[in-house]
Every structure is written in structure tokens, then in C-alpha cells.
């Protein structure tokens, strides 16, 4: 379970102080799929980053499976992230200099998995995402949809507790996007992940267990 209590975050920029999140309180149930949606600049990504420990809020507490992540030291937070979190980004954000196999293997090796287990797990995941023959390819050799599938596989490779996805279908056409959503939800469910997805995509919003509309950094309503 992930609990947010009074999370506020503001940025200082050329436009002055921008309130990205304002007193956000919400509970994400274990193994649920939650769609965070709203207009551009509404604070979706900031919310995801605060949950994932990439941003430190000015106030409020974010508890992730019993751990107040913002009270952790830098090193402890990193170790928590590498073990318990998986990120899917808008453009895949694979490592350009690593092959597809090496990209998916990265979080496993980072978590100290044995080589045999890494090979087995990556091969399974490549099979699951329909890219069994693409292990040796470099990211630039793949289509946008394939890159996103690899990104999902990489995010859940080490069986994290939480999968955070930031507009994973934004750069895909609707059919490819729908397939990706299905794949992500299936794989996440199989792994027992709590999935939090920032999105504009109605498919994701409709398929989610819970919806979290956000506007100007505030939660509008809670809808189950």
C-alpha cells in the first residue's frame, strides 16, 4: 500500500514559484492499477516522481509499503528504488549503448542476480513481449512500440512492488498503445505490482482499478 499525506511540491523557475502539487492525500491499494490523469502541467509527473523518490516534496509524507521514502538517506533511497520500483517513461528511455537483452538485464544485475537467473529471466521477458529474437538489437533498431514493450519488461524485470509509468502510450498510435497497456497490465498483474500510471489515454483510464484526476496540483475527485 502507498499512502500520500498532504504532499506539496513547488518549483522555482523563470515564471516564479509554481505549485506543482498542493496538499495531495491519497492511498494506492496493493496490486491496484491507478490512472493519474489530467491536463499537461497538472502535476501528474511530479506526483509520480514524489512517489518514486525522485522528487522530495516540501511537505507531506509518502509511505511506500511502510517506508517513509523521503526520510531515507540518499543511499538507502537508491537501494529502495532499485529493489522496489520500476519506471516506464514516455519515450522508453532505454540505454542507447546497451542491447535489448542488456537493457532488460540491467536492473537484475544491479540487484545482484546471478548470471544464470538473469539470462533465464530476460529470455522469459523477451518471449512475453514478443521480441525473443531481438535480444542482440540496439534500441535504435526497434520501432516506438517495441521500445515501449522493452521498457515495460525492463521496469518489471526485477519484480518490483511498484510500477510507475509516465505517459507510456503518449508517443504511440492508438492500436499500439492499447496493446502496450494490455501487456503492461498483464505483466504487472502477474508480478503482483501496484501500478500507477500518469496518462491522457482513455484506454488506460478505463482499464484502471482507480482513477485519480488531478488539476493544478490538486486532486479533483476520487473515483473508484
Amino acid at each position, binding site marked *: 500500500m502507498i499512502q500520500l499525506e498532504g504532499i506539496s511540491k513547488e518549483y522555482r523557475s523563470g515564471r516564479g514559484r509554481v505549485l506543482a502539487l498542493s496538499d495531495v492525500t491519497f492511498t494506492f491499494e496493493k496490486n491496484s492499477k491507478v490512472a493519474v490523469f489530467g491536463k499537461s502541467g497538472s502535476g501528474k*509527473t511530479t506526483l509520480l*516522481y514524489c512517489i*518514486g523518490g*525522485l*522528487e522530495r516534496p516540501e511537505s507531506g509524507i509518502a509511505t511506500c509499503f511502510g517506508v517513509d521514502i523521503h526520510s531515507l538517506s*540518499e*543511499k538507502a533511497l*537508491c*537501494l*529502495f*528504488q*532499485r*529493489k522496489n*520500483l520500476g*519506471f516506464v*517513461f514516455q519515450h522508453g*528511455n532505454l*540505454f*542507447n*549503448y*546497451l542491447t535489448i537483452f*542488456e537493457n532488460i538485464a*540491467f*536492473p537484475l*544485475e*544491479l540487484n*545482484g542476480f546471478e548470471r544464470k537467473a538473469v539470462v533465464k529471466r530476460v529470455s522469459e521477458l523477451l518471449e512475453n513481449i514478443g521480441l525473443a529474437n531481438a535480444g542482440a538489437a*540496439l534500441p535504435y533498431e526497434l520501432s516506438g512500440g517495441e521500445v515501449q514493450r522493452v521498457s515495460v519488461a525492463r521496469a518489471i524485470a526485477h519484480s518490483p512492488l511498484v510500477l510507475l509509468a509516465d505517459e507510456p502510450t503518449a508517443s504511440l498510435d492508438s492500436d499500439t498503445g492499447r496493446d502496450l497497456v494490455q501487456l503492461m497490465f498483464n505483466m504487472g498483474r502477474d508480478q503482483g505490482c501496484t501500478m500507477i500510471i500518469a496518462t491522457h489515454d482513455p484506454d488506460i483510464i478505463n482499464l484502471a482499478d482507480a482513477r485519480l484526476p488531478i488539476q493544478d496540483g490538486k486532486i479533483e475527485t476520487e473515483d473508484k
Partner: protein
Amino acid sequence: MSFRYLKFWIKTAFLFLSRSARSTAVLSLMVVSAVSVLIFLSALAVGVNDAMIQNSIGLYSGHILGDLLPHSLNTENLKIDGVAGVLKRSLIPGILSNGDSVETIAMVAVDPGAELKHAAIWKKTIMGRYIQNGENSIFLSSTLAKQLDVQTGSILQFNPAISKKLVKLMVSGIYKTEIDYLDQGIAFCPFEILPVKTTTWRAAIFLKKGIDPGQIIRRYRQLLPKSLEFKSWQEMMPALLQLIDLNYVSMGIVMVLVFGVVSIGIACAFVIFIFKNLREYGIMKAMGVTPREIAHLIVIEVIMMNLVASIVGILGGFLAVLITGHTGIDLTYFTSHNRYFVVSGVIFPRLTFYSLCLPPMLAFFFSLVSAIWPAWLIARKKAADILRSI
């Protein structure tokens, strides 16, 4: 960091570098060229020093001077392992005259055959030829020839200070070395034509290549009476020794300065290289890679890049030294009036352990220093900021 983690980061660094080969090659070029150039320059400095030593000792004095040696001791007694040749010489002071022209000199009685084999003063002949065994001839400097107003073929009279017997000598050759003690008040003649014998003799000992004079002197002290005096060229020519040391110090300063500049270049280029891959580091941070691990990755990348660049640089420098070391670099035009290059101005660059190892070691050290800045920059950057900026 455990061995498995280290292996993982080494592998990641290797893949990052090898799969961005073009950027890596451009970045490495600076180190490669700096290492090659400095290896060559230090080999050249060694070659210059070798040439100065060779010219200075080879002309006349030899590597070791043995003075006041009794006649009971002969040249064979001094020919031990590492000695290439021993020249026997006797110094007889006297007066050299040509009619009314009179000069006080030190006549050096020599074995012309042996001198031709080991010493190079005969190469400085500007008129006539060197003396030969058994002939009543004299080999003198151009200064002395001018003072006495003689030319080759002229007959001179030598009056030894320790004898009343006069000796007539024909000028066989005139030389010029540009070295004061050889160009003034000294002349050479064969041993056998002098009517007097000195009680002691002087040895010019020439060593084989790479033999340390100190080692031979220590051996003489073990084998011969302690009272005998031997001096190495370092003791005989402190100015030359100082010049050689100065040469090494200058080379060291040049190396440090070059690598200081190169390291700033490497640091700047590496910052650009790292910012080019900023996205990768941002993703890593989001995946829970610690700033320390990212710093390790960057340092490993720098080490790897430098190892490869240094090896290529060593090969480049080695090749340049191999070619020029064989043919030599003729700097006669710049050395013809220099006393330390009297015999030959050809420099043969030579690699030593230090000239080969110091440049890559310095490159390695300065590159590590240059990695600190980019590693620090990337480690303190927040993942969210990086991800937002890409």
C-alpha cells in the same frame, strides 16, 4: 563494492565506451598523442644526454680516469669485464719552440694505434693527419699552431722539463675541438720517440655500452691497491652532469605541464561526453543507481579509455623512437659550436624505463584527476531534473 558489482560496472563502462566508439576515439586522441609525443620527447632527451656524454668522454677523456698509476701496472690489469679499452698516456711538461716562438705545453705521449681505436680527437683534425706509431711527429691544436706559427710539415723542437735532451718533431696534423683544455697548451706525440719516461702514467678507460663507471671503479678498488685514484666522468665533468640533470628536470616539467593542459582538455571533453549521455545517467539514477556508483562508472570509463589510449600512445611513441633511433636525427647544424657535441651532432633517441613508463603514468594520474569534475557534476544532478530536461 563487491567483485560482482565491480565486474558489472566494468562491463557497463566497456559497453558504453565501445558502442560510442567514435566519441571515445576522438576523446582518446588527446591522450594518445600526448603519450606518444612525450615518450618520443623523453627518448630524445635521453638521446641528447647520451650524445653529450658520448661526445664528451669519447673525444679524449674516457669514462674513467686513472691517474698517477705506477708502471708496474699495465693496461691489461685494468681491462676487466665491462671495459672496452684502456689508453695509456703520459704527461710531460716542457717547452715547444719554432725558432723564436716558444710555448710552454704539456706533451701527452700516447699509443696512436690504440688512440685511433677508442678516442675520437683525431676526428677533429682540420689539417694534415693524426700521428702514427714510431714516427717523430706531433699533433697539436690550431691555437698552438697559430701561436708557434707552424703548419703541417713544419719541424718543432720539444724540450722536456725533466730532461735536457731535445726532440725534433714534425707537425703531422692540426686539430680544433672548441674545448679550452684541449685547444690550449697541449700536444700529442707517440710514446717511443720521447727520450724520457715519467714515473707514473695516466689511463683513459672506455667502457662498454650501458656500463656504470661507478661499478667498474668499485671493482678496481677491490682488485687493485687502494692508493690508486680513479675518477668517473661524472667527477671529472660536473658541468656536464649538471646539464644532464637539468635536461631531465626540464623534461619532467614539460611532461607535467603538457599533461596538466591535456588533463584540462580531457576533463572538458569528458564533461561534454558525459552530458551527451546525460539521459543514460538520469535513467540510471531513476533506477536506483547511487551517485557513488555513477562516479565509479565514470572513473572506470576514464581508466579504460586511458588504458587503451596509453597503450596506443606507447606503441606510437615506441615506433617513432624505433625509426629515429635507428637512423638518428642529425642536429649538427645546431650543435657544431657546442663543446658537448664536438664529435657528432647526430642524436639517437633511446627509450629507458622512465621515458617509456612516465608519460602513460602521468596520463593515467591526470586523467583520474580530470574525471573528478564530470563525476561530481553528474553525481549531484537530480534524476528528476535530468529526466525533465531530455
